[in-house]
């Protein structure tokens, strides 16, 4: 876990007046009503999880509740919470749910309690909680089809275009605004003798689907399932997206990209070996760390290029929920109010740990001005919010979908025909989806 740095302390000091103001406003609210209780919190290992552990003492002092925060790597965490939910006795009272992976599964089984009911309870909700401060899109993202909101939205992760300003400037190349421009720029920058590549992106199966969906979102069809909830991954638009994916990964990326997940891409970009990289905005922090990155201060942030018909960036996100079987829903709700309160969300934005679900952090010019991230980062983030669209289909077997489609995409990097691969993958996954739709 990263320690608190001087810059973070300064940001904390800047945000301090807001805390004092909040405490004044909440003087009537009894934060200590559950004093002496203990709750367990299970979140993913990420800069957001680190923020929660760093500031956990603040929650404990505010409420008198002891909170044990368990931080587990992303993939293992997703599996762990599902297995614990299914057991009927989850070990945690607050759990992070990846909305782009587990939303439907958690919602269908009604594993979490409805947050709407807790928000409506005036005795349990602080007067300044201000639910309307959560972005409309994020509130909708966290709401199930039946209207229940079984997680409180925590953060969004938009896909953006990271670029190396130096490499682009050296060839007098402007930031690309469409995929053809981006590919041409990548080829112009490429210098294989110096191991400099125009692009780097996810090639590893499963992880790679979200890059492919960044291309697909720019087409007429945009989505992976249609209004009748049928799979449409072998259409002309889907094949177009696959061809884009293939040419970027096969012709403009470093050899071996077929096995790259986000971390290999990040390392390659940080070493100054790749000029452009489309990935989640949550990966920005290490790029600007001069002790780890050779491109700190030289990173450009831009919107994902426009597609032939539409302009969207892939949206992912997570929320924090309270298991229906938790015996400590009250203390857990206080934890959610603190963890996703204005102060913590501001810290998230200032640390570059993700895009807060609340709107208020974006209006805090003082904290944004002190951030190590350039203005361009924040403007890209806000502009991405306006064009964001779900990067994965909201279906139950989403991991299986990523596995099957991801394998086909990986095969295309090896030279396989995009049409044949996508048709075969679609045929393989169709029965899985149909069955899950019948059940779900």
């Amino acid at each position, binding site marked *: 876990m990263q320690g608190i740095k001087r810059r973070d302390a300064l940001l904390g000091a800047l945000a301090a007046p807001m805390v004092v103001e909040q405490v004044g406003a909440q003087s009537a609210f009894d934060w200590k009503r559950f004093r002496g209780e203990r709750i367990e919190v299970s979140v993913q290992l990420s800069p957001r999880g680190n923020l929660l552990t760093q500031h956990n003492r603040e929650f404990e002092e505010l409420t008198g509740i002891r909170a044990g925060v368990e931080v587990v790597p992303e993939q293992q965490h997703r599996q762990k919470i599902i297995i614990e939910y299914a057991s009927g006795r989850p070990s945690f009272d607050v759990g992070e749910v990846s909305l782009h992976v587990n939303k439907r599964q958690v919602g269908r089984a009604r594993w979490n309690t409805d947050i709407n009911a807790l928000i409506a309870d005036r005795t349990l909700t602080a007067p300044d909680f201000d639910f309307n401060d959560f972005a409309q899109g994020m509130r909708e993202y966290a709401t199930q089809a039946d209207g229940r909101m079984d997680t409180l939205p925590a953060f969004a992760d938009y896909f953006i275009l990271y670029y190396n300003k130096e490499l682009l400037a050296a060839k007098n190349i402007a930031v690309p605004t469409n995929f053809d421009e981006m590919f041409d720029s990548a080829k112009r920058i490429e210098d294989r003798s110096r191991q400099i590549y125009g692009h780097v992106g996810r090639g590893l199966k499963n992880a790679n689907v979200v890059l492919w969906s960044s291309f697909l979102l720019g087409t007429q069809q945009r989505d992976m399932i249609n209004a009748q909830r049928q799979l449409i991954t072998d259409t002309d638009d889907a094949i177009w997206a696959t061809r884009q994916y293939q040419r970027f990964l096969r012709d403009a990326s470093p*050899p071996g990209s*077929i096995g790259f997940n986000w971390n290999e891409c990040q390392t*390659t970009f940080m070493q100054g*070996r790749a000029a452009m990289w489309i990935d989640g905005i949550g990966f920005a922090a290490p790029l600007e760390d001069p002790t780890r990155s050779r491109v700190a201060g030289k990173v450009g942030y831009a919107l994902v290029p426009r597609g032939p018909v539409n302009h969207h960036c892939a949206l992912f996100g997570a929320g924090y929920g309270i298991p229906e079987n938790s015996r400590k829903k009250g203390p857990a709700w206080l934890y959610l109010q603190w963890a996703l309160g204005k102060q913590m969300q501001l810290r998230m934005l200032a640390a570059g740990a993700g895009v807060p679900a609340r709107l208020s952090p974006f209006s805090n010019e003082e904290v944004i001005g002190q951030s190590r991230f350039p203005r361009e980062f924040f403007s890209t983030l806000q502009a991405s919010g306006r064009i964001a669209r779900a990067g994965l289909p909201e279906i139950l077997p989403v991991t299986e979908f990523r596995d099957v489609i991801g394998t086909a995409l990986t095969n295309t990097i090896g030279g396989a025909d995009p049409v044949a691969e996508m048709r075969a993958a679609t045929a393989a996954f169709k029965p899985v989806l149909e069955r899950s739709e019948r059940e779900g």
Partner: protein
Amino acid sequence: MTPRRNYARRYVWFVVPAAFAVVATILFPWLFTIYVSAFDWRLGGAREWVGFANYTKLFSDERFGWAMLRTLLYTAMAVVFPLILGLVAALVFNQKFPLRGLARTVFILPMMATPVAVALVWTMMFHPQLGVLNWLLAQIGIPPSMWVYSPDTVIPTLVVVEVWHWTPLVMLLILGGLASLPGDPYEAAKIDGATALQCFWHITLPLLAPYIVVALIIRTIDALKAFDTIYVITQGGPGSASETINIFLYLQAFAFYNVGYASAVVVVFFAIILALAALLMWTRQRVKQ
């Protein structure tokens, strides 16, 4: 009632705790796994009794078939190479030479490392642009390899990690065997004018055979079970190029939550391991005789 039966009855209660532990931790999970394998069950969804349908599906599942073939290929390589190299290393370390103790200690160091830590270090070394292995190749004028980043080289590369990690274990097992070999046959052979190679082929190897078979059994079971290093380094990729049975099983159970189908995989895979172990045990008996 005979005194012998009295004795058994008096002490039968001492067996109960151990029997309970065996039933609770081995027998019950096994019976439950077999029971679950007869259901079409996705975690969080409904359960439907399907009898042997999961097994029939398994044998027509192309992905399972490929995973099985990869597992066998990986196992064959991850057993044969450590056995050969371990045997050679044991013969070398059985000789007397300066700093032999230190050399032995250094040689067995990989075995002491945690598999996940080992996998993470190798992953960094395999990186096609930033890894030290390709840098070393470049220093001697050899073109870079894609290591685990190519479907063609991923399995042999994973075997390299396994060989590096577990050859010391084979060496230790065979070294123990070498230390217990009698000296008389060698003296007799020397008097008869046998060469070193003849001594090795006609005396050392046959006498070492039981130890080699033990190493073979341990390595085979270990290699069949291999999961951690493969998962950390490749997660079964690129594509499905390194998806062994264990990775396939893991995905079915913990990524796709197909609990019923995954249970069927466990049952079939266990039967295969059991059959292989029985074959190897039978071979060991034959060798002993």
